[in-house]
């Protein structure tokens, strides 16, 4: 009989899935505004993208509050312990059915590579996307606020796009790595039910 641990609380799961939905929709609409394809039409894409962005801002306000009141922010403190073991596992061990070098606990939900990846998103991609996004959203006020002296739409757009590509790449790798639990759907189930089953 396998052990079960309650890894993801209700808020965490709601946050995760709504954030996932928003980010995917933001990527779809964002790359349309960027000129990569045509789905909604430019104007609708811009308006939808803006609405989704504000919705995500709202969600983040809740998430930040939750992380600090619950102390969960500590989950993102980086560690280099076992990073090499994780890398080795993904490169070799996973093919030979070697044991996973990391065991999730309620205090350490994320493996060391996850921690680094999420931290990178939190401290680099996130701020880059938010600041360039807000500059974009408040473009109409640049002159009034004197921002036009320091900002240039081309650079704002370019960095916003850079961050978007990083999110896209993160998304691809992240979704794939969810299948690397003890069964391909174990991590996904955990994120839906909150319960992680262990071998």
């Amino acid at each position: 009989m396998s052990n079960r641990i309650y890894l993801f609380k209700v808020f965490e799961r709601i946050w995760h899935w709504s954030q996932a939905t928003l980010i995917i929709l933001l990527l779809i609409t964002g790359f349309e505004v960027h000129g990569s394809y045509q789905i909604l039409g430019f104007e609708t894409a811009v308006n939808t993208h803006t609405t989704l962005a504000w919705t995500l801002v709202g969600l983040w306000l809740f998430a930040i509050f939750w992380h600090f009141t619950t102390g969960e922010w500590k989950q993102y403190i980086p560690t280099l312990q076992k990073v090499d073991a994780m890398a080795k596992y993904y490169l070799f061990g996973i093919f030979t059915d070697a044991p996973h070098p990391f065991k999730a606990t309620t205090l350490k939900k994320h493996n060391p590579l996850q921690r680094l990846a999420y931290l990178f998103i939190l401290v680099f991609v996130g701020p880059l996307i938010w600041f360039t996004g807000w500059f974009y959203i408040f473009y109409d006020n640049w002159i009034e606020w004197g921002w036009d002296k320091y900002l240039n739409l081309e650079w704002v757009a370019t960095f916003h796009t850079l961050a978007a590509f990083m999110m896209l790449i993160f998304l691809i790798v992240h979704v794939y790595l969810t299948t690397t639990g003890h069964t391909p759907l174990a991590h996904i189930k955990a994120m839906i039910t909150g319960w992680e089953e262990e071998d």
Partner: protein
Amino acid sequence: MSLAKLVRVLAVTAGMVLAANAAQANTDPAPAAPAEKKASTSTADHSKFKELQENFATGPDVTKACLKCHTEAAKQIMHTKHWTWEYLNPQTNQLLGKKHIINNFCTSISSNQEFCTACHIGYGWKDDKFDFSNQDNVDCLVCHDTTGTYRKLPGYAGHPPYKDTEAPAGSGFIVKAVDLKAVAQGVGKTSRKTCGSCHFLGGGGDAVKHGDLDTTLTNPSKYLDVHMAKDGLNFTCATCHETDGHNVPGSRYTPVADDTTPHIRGKKNADPETCQSCHTAAPHKHNARLNTHAVVIACQTCHIPEFARGQPTKMSWDWSTAGKLDKDGKPIRIKDSSGHHDSYDSRKGNFRYESNVIPEYIWFNGKVEYTLRETKLDPTKVVKINTLEGSPTDGKSKIWPIKRFTGKQPYDVGNNQLVVFHTYGKDDSALWTNFNWDKALEYGMKEIGAQYSGKYAFVETEYSWPTTHMVAPKGDALTCAQCHQPSIGVGRLDKVPGIYMPGRRANALLNTAGWAIAALCLLGVLVHGAGRIYASRKGAHK
């Protein structure tokens, strides 16, 4: 129904029918007249003036009568470009005006005044000896006629036909003599029709010169002109070109490209004809993003989605092919595929007409430099009749829509200058009489006392016209996608430098790298996944 009641009903019905007939009869002879009469709030009925009870023989006779009361009118007019056809551009110090410039339509009035001055607000300008100081020479009627019957024909030096006249000569069309008394008694404010009698016909015909001014504006639909539509605001030209002391604001020589002192109608020194003077510089009440666009984009760029929306406008004129005659030595005219316009005319060469034309877009700051007759030109390049100055960084420019009119016209090979040629005249040197370029050029250049090497060739020219009239309703303005995500593949502002346009100007390196890395990651995880599946199957077999 009682008999009395029946009689009443019949009487009322008959009355309505009679009234309706009467109304119809009123509108028949001059459709525009009743509405205008009704709208008139003038305190003077000119038909009651004893000065105007005369049977005037000529235009100047009418003017004399006008000036008896309007003592300052001619003096005012004489200070305006409408009279002088001359303008010293203070920005460039170039002497411009119809009297001086050579364009790429009919090219020059010099040596052709008798013909061209059909559109001068005067009488008798047939050569360079015209007396610009004689007040009787001012034509009040061409602007102030409300009867719609006043007409000036080319070839009469600005005089209207005083007797029934065949025009053009030999055509069989008879233009009736103008009833000067009736016209004089019917004077009133200017109208779309009076301004249009010249401005709609610029370049020698309807819609030739301007893509945004032609006779369809006499009675436009809302789609054609949201301001002038008769079933809408019903603006006249002077509603925007609010005239003060006969000085009509608005200029092609010094246009206002960016009105930074807007919304001060009535204030002196402001420009009443700009969009901003009514709409302000931030007119989109519920869409700040559009106001931001308006910081660098002229209103006209979005709100005049195409020009020549009423009828085709001439887009090019090649003089070099003029003069071909048929086997009997007679001039020929060939219609274009529409059947409405000439594609060739022996007198003028080849033309191209287009309708619903997408403008070109350029940065423009209001400064215009002309290639004058004196200007040395480079015949290996397209000669720009005018150059509209502007840049994304000068802080004064906006992105404007223009009509770019191209042509081919003669120049002096010896002096590398544009030339004046004698187009029209009752002599044997005029191009339209004998189709001989040498004679026409010799005559024209001699007439203005300019040097001419005696050798000519044709040079390509272009003339840029900022598009500003025929503003469409807001529902017909450009959509975001027409610049940002064009379904036709070419965005309206694709060629305009110095702007970042989301959807069109993405960083190519970032794009390539971004998609490549994303694709590699996808490939990587797929290979990794395939490897896991393979490994687990192999493991299961063991």
